[in-house]
């Protein structure tokens, strides 16, 4: 199967740093699978995710996501790319505190071109599916961590993105809420959503991912199929 995401010779060096954050990464990621990127703290996992999502640009190399040369996009292009092609789930949720739960989800849909009414309807639908219908009018500050992460996931998938990027999605959650969030991601994957998951937890990666990519000091140190692929 052709790769949905392809990286060739990707390096990232931050502002005169002596050690590259990423060094010569070659990687292909299949569509429809959960790919976990693991490694110790500071190994470049989040940097790799940011580059795939167009939040940052590589110093060298090529990145192709769904036939789009992400590394060549300017700021405007990468913003437009993220609207429809990428859904982001952050460790600390990063919800907009001044918007309601429904507003947080709807704003992403509106950015992608939906009318306010359409966006609102879509947001309500998703929130209902995620068990948050009753919280649609609430504000993020009043939600639990687990609820916030579910809102973040709803926002990430509202535009049916090509790929869902999740950066330590359970890092700020307790075990129960973390499992709940992972179950959600698994369910999305069963419906065909491609997911790239960054985690420091190898056991989690083993449970959830079809494939595990191991990074150490910015370089690929391992690439194998996981039990979930079986």
């Amino acid at each position: 199967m052709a790769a949905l995401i392809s990286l060739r010779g990707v390096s990232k060096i931050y502002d005169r740093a002596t050690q590259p954050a990423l060094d010569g990464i070659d990687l292909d990621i299949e569509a429809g699978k959960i790919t976990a990127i693991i490694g110790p703290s500071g190994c470049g996992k989040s940097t790799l995710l940011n580059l795939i999502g167009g939040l940052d640009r590589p110093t060298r190399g090529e990145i192709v996501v769904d036939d789009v040369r992400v590394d060549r996009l300017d700021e405007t292009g990468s913003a437009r790319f993220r609207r429809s092609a990428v859904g982001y789930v952050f460790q600390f949720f990063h919800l907009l505190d001044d918007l309601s739960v429904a507003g947080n989800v709807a704003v992403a849909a509106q950015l992608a071109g939906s009318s306010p009414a359409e966006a609102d309807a879509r947001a309500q639908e998703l929130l209902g599916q995620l068990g948050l219908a009753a919280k649609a009018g609430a504000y993020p500050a009043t939600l639990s961590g687990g609820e916030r992460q579910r809102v973040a996931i709803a926002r990430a998938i509202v535009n049916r993105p090509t790929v869902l990027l999740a950066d330590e999605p359970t890092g700020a959650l307790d075990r129960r809420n973390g499992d709940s969030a992972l179950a959600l991601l698994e369910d999305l994957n069963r419906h065909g959503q491609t997911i790239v998951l960054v985690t420091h937890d190898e056991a989690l990666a083993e449970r959830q991912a079809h494939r595990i990519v191991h990074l150490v000091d910015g370089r690929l140190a391992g690439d194998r199929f996981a039990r979930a692929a079986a």
Partner: protein
Amino acid sequence: MGAVATKTRADLRRRRLQSVALALVLFLATAAATLSLNILVASHEPFERAFAAANGAHLVIAYDGTIDDARLAATAHAAGVTASAGPYPIGEADFEHLKGGRVFGQSISGRPQADASIDAITMIAGRWWQRPGEVVLDRSIAAVLEKQVGDRVTVYSTPQASGGKGPDAVPGPPEAPGTTGPRPTLSATVVGIAGSVSTPDVAAWLSPSDVTLLMAGRPTAKEMLYRVEPAATQADLVAAKARITAALDPRAVTGQTTWLDLRTSVNKTADLYVPVLLAFSIFALLAAAFAIANVISGIVLSSYRDIGVMKAVGFTPRQVSTMLLVQILAPATLGTALGVAAGLVASQPTVVSTTEAFGLPPAFAFSPLVLLVVPLAALGVASVAALGPAIRAGRLSPVEAMTRGTMPAVGGLARRLRGLGFRLPVALPVRLGLTAGIAHPARSGMTLGALVVGVAAATFAIGTNLSLLRIKTDIDRGATAPVRVELPSPDRAADVATTIAGLSGTARFVGLGQGTVSVPLAGSMPFVGYDGDASWIGFPIIHGRWFAGPGEAVAPTNVFRQAGKQIGDTIQVQGDSGAVTLTLVGEIFDTGDESRDGLVLRGSLADLRRLDATAAVDRFEIQPVAGTSARDYRTAFSEATQDAIAVSVISDLSSDADFLLFLSVVAFLGVVLVAISIGGVFNTVLLETRQRWRELAILKAIGLTPLQVLVQVVSSVLVVGLLAGFIGVPLGLLIERGVIAYMGETAAHLAIPESAFDVLLPVAYVGLALSGLAIAVVGAFLPARRAASLRVAPVLQAE
């Protein structure tokens, strides 16, 4: 204190841009306030300062020129006289204008030396005259004639033997036989330009022999200056004069001026500047207060999380409060110090020119009180705005501080407003920006305050300048009756009228005569009678209409006020030859030469003759045809009459330099206040975007483009910008109206015609209303650009 200093320095470095912006707002505000107040103080009682510095003369007495010099010199020994100068000859002469024509009837003085012990002359340029053929010009006449040291000037003996104009004029001796031929002229070198406190009406000083030459063998008057003790009141001066002239014939004195008369006149003019400059000072400090309060409260709010961490580490509440205050007061103090210095320097040219405009030598540089009050006020505002929040922040528990720093401080009202704003039918970035702008009503209110002051100040500056220009045009009547011809005697009226009518450049003209009449309750005043239709003469009508013929009159505001009359009322006017009942049909804006303290009647010559049988036409006012300049007409008339008849262009009799300088100061202050408003918006939006950095990063992460971020940030000030226009413009116009009305009342007890305020086209009002929006957008642009270029990954990962 080491930890406190370290942390404070680090915070100042981290908030460099904000510190610079805060310092800039204070700089502009204090510079504007210092500039305005320094000029204001210089304009307040300028005469007293200049008089004291120059050892001014308490009494200036003119004597009959036939009295022996020795007898006049002996008057200096009268009791109470502490210093004196003179006697020396004085007279009148005409000066040739650089652009052609002459300036008529200027006072000349044969004062031999600039004695510092009494009325010390201020040499502005060059030196005092030393020999015949040299002349020292007064600053004002030098500006009118456009002469500098080293230039040649031609001075003519005046054709009429008049001691002045108006009802107080002392009629001179009749023309001596044999003087109908060419009049004596003097070609002199300008060796100096000077100013005199006690004799501001003197246009030129030259040798006594030159004065005698120009007076063409007619008896000259002689002048002496006196300093006396006591001299505080008019009674003192009357008594002193009595002692001085006790040994002389009662008819020996032909004229006098006291220092109290001069003081009243100068200070009255100076008072005109008071409301304008005071308004700008208040504008400046208000604008700064709004901007500072907004920024400071924002700085404190944005520091809460930091405060929580500091307290958790071990900083005491007092240390935390101190750090916050230093962060704010350090840039505020720097900005204030530089601003006061800049305002002081910037005020100097205007301060010097202001005192010179009053005919006074410069005797003022700065006011220590202003240098104390402005920084105290500015830093006081900054301290008051910072102290409360800083103390509250210092007292917060670490957990509370960190919680307030990480969670949005938006209450129920703000959320409801944001919810409403998010439903507006506009593009998403605009919607996001509008909701951000209205989510903090208190902050938006202060931003609105700063913008309103900026818009009001700009409106005030533009409106005031245009109104003053219109008023000046009305005063000069330059468009309607710019040329004046003065007859050497009334019996020349018929042939001069024929000459005027025969000139191709004459569009309209009318003859004028004048007498003195009495009006019940208002007292004595001039009556100017017009020999024909004078409705075109150019006095703006405030109420009513111009008089149509005998039995009617028009008058300025003070006549109505003093006589207790309204339009349509009749007055019983009494003259030397009889009484006439006149209907007051019009209130006019009248600053003509004839008006004394805002009192003058204008009507028909027929009525004037019934009041004063000796009255006759003694001058003409002329309107040239379109396309003929007043100066060209003057030249043509001079040629037609071989320079035998005095003709002048009214606007040539004064210099516009000081008026234009005042207008430029007003315009400059308006610009500065707009800059302060822009600075205030810049600071506020900068603070807002810093507080919303994470939110902006999230929005960019989910797909907001840099341009959309810029639009969002700028949109946050759209509502306050629009509101500021709709509030600030009427406010500025209202203040302008009040200030101009005050100036009219102070200067000449005059109401200002409505036409003076009708100076803006409708499109200008629209422009001014949108100026608030423009100021807001300009102020928000740079922080918006900065926000648009923020890098998402570092911001989100820093969380």
